[in-house]
């Protein structure tokens, strides 16, 4: 489809991009930064309202951007993640200052970049959109100007991230050499022929480095705890969810379109990496004393579970990945909203600040309990549905070792999630009662809570939305 025909289907994205530039421009003239925040939210809602499900897969812009049901799902996902993060950041004090408007503007660009990642169907497009997301992430992580931790996190993210992209780019250049084309379907077809099979095995490794970094897959997870601890809390919440989910999206597309012929080889490797990721994440999370670092390791472990779906790569496995990501969106953003609240009011991110939280702020304690229980994968909450699907996929495809290891890991994870619940409810409080949550944060918490509960209680409705 040529450019002019494609534009018709690309209107929501153009509105989003225009809105992002508009917000950045208006920021120069408007003193009240809260207005800018509301304007950004409005742009996101408008974009979401304009989205239309494609009747059949549309290869927009000469096949650069594949608009199919898969991309459509991730478009909503990206917009939702950005909107909830903005809501969470709306009352976040460390961001207040002359640069607050730019923060909102950057997030709108981020939403646009994430949508591009979701539909990228060409090696060039994948590289550009993934880099787009990465660049904005580096800036957002280092957004707090005077904060040494934030700066250190940004520099670590930058160095690891650029190296991972460079390795992935080298893999892409080899694929281009083998197939003579950059479009994923053409690359995939070329790799079916014998002389290129070896090259496919090599270049899939390069892809594992680049995309494995994005989804914090072991052994490329080293950056995650440091970055998640140093970044401003709403940005951390965002990074653990959206870029990771879109990393999985592009990973799935690349594996499905290009590396299907060599499935037997990378499936074994992914199974091993999935086991390594969840085990490393869980065992290290046991001994953390900082809540953000703790949730960082827990999110690495969660990435390990999601990788199960990729390793299996049956229909059920792929659906499991989507369900898991949706559950994970609500649960993790909710947990970080509580961390934002407590961090604001006590000025501490240590686990010690959570001792006796049930007496100091019963509401926050109750919310955090729900989110942690969902992360542990206990019914009737969203986390259970996600886990159920990836486990079912692994068992159906007879990945028995993987299933057993994952089950053992879930038990370890339940132990450390409940350790925090115990800390909140059974340890005496050490400080005075906390003030109630600011309204935007409370709304975020309420929405996430509703999402976790509804996805857990009425999964059929959400599943219908996902694979309509």
């Amino acid at each position, binding site marked *: 489809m040529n450019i002019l025909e494609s534009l018709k289907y690309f209107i929501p994205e153009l509105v989003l991009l225009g809105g992002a530039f508009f917000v950045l421009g208006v920021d120069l003239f408007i003193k009240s930064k809260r207005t800018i925040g509301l304007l950004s939210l409005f742009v996101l809602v408008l974009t979401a309202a304009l989205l239309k499900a494609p009747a059949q897969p549309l290869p927009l812009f000469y096949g650069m951007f594949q608009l199919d049901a898969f991309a459509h799902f991730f478009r909503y996902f990206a917009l939702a993640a950005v909107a909830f993060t903005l809501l969470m950041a709306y009352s976040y004090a460390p961001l207040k200052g002359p640069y607050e408007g730019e923060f909102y503007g950057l997030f709108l660009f981020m939403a646009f970049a994430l949508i591009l990642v979701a539909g990228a169907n060409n090696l*060039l497009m994948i*590289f550009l959109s993934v880099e787009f997301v990465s660049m904005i992430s580096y800036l957002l992580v280092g957004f707090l100007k005077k904060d040494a931790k934030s*700066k250190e996190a940004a*520099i*670590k993210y930058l160095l690891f991230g650029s190296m991972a992209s*460079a390795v992935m780019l*080298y893999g892409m250049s080899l694929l*281009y050499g083998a197939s*003579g084309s*950059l479009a994923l379907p053409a690359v995939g077809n070329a790799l079916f022929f014998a002389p290129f099979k070896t090259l496919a095995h090599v270049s899939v490794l390069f892809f594992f480095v680049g995309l494995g970094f994005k989804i914090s897959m072991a052994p490329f997870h080293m950056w995650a705890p440091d970055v998640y601890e140093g970044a401003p809390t709403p940005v951390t919440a965002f990074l653990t969810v959206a870029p990771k989910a879109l990393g999985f999206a592009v990973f799935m597309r690349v594996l499905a379109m290009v590396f299907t012929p060599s499935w037997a080889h990378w499936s074994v490797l992914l199974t091993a990496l999935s086991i390594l990721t969840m085990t490393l994440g869980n065992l290290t999370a046991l001994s953390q004393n900082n809540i953000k670092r703790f949730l960082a390791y827990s999110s690495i472990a969660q990435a390990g579970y999601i990788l199960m779906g990729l390793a299996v790569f049956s229909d059920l496995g792929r659906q499991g990945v989507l369900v898991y990501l949706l559950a994970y969106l609500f649960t993790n953003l909710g947990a970080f909203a509580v961390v934002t609240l407590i961090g604001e009011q006590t000025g501490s991110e240590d686990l010690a600040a959570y001792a006796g939280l049930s007496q100091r702020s019963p509401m926050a304690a109750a919310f955090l309990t729900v989110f942690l229980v969902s992360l542990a994968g206990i019914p009737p909450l969203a986390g259970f549905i996600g886990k159920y699907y990836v486990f079912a996929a692994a068992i159906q495809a007879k990945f028995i070792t993987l299933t057993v290891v994952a089950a053992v890991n879930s038990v370890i994870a339940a132990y450390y999630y409940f350790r925090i619940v115990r800390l909140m409810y059974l340890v005496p409080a050490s400080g005075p009662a906390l003030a109630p949550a600011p309204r935007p944060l409370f709304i975020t918490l309420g929405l996430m809570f509703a999402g976790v509960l509804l996805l857990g209680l009425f999964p059929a409705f959400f599943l219908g939305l996902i694979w309509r």
Partner: protein
Amino acid sequence: MIVPLQHILIFSLLLFAIGLYGVLVRRNIIGILISIELMLNAANINLIAFSKSTSLAPETGQIFAIFVIAIAATAAAVGLAIVLALYRVRKTVYTDEVNLLKW
């Protein structure tokens, strides 16, 4: 004289390896960023070489290379900005002195 494709590929592989080595052993953050540029340029050489030899549409590889050069420039801009901001707060650009965050 036409240089055979294999020679170019070996050259780009060497360049990539040098870049990777630099990333792993350098202490200075600027040095690491320059090493990453080497890795990107190794990929660029591959793209150009392949666009002359195996490609169905030669221009795609060359366009990709131009995009990579642009991305490398933005990466340098963002990277140096962050390095500068780090230097203002911590007064260092050595990786082993940037050690607030650890397990």
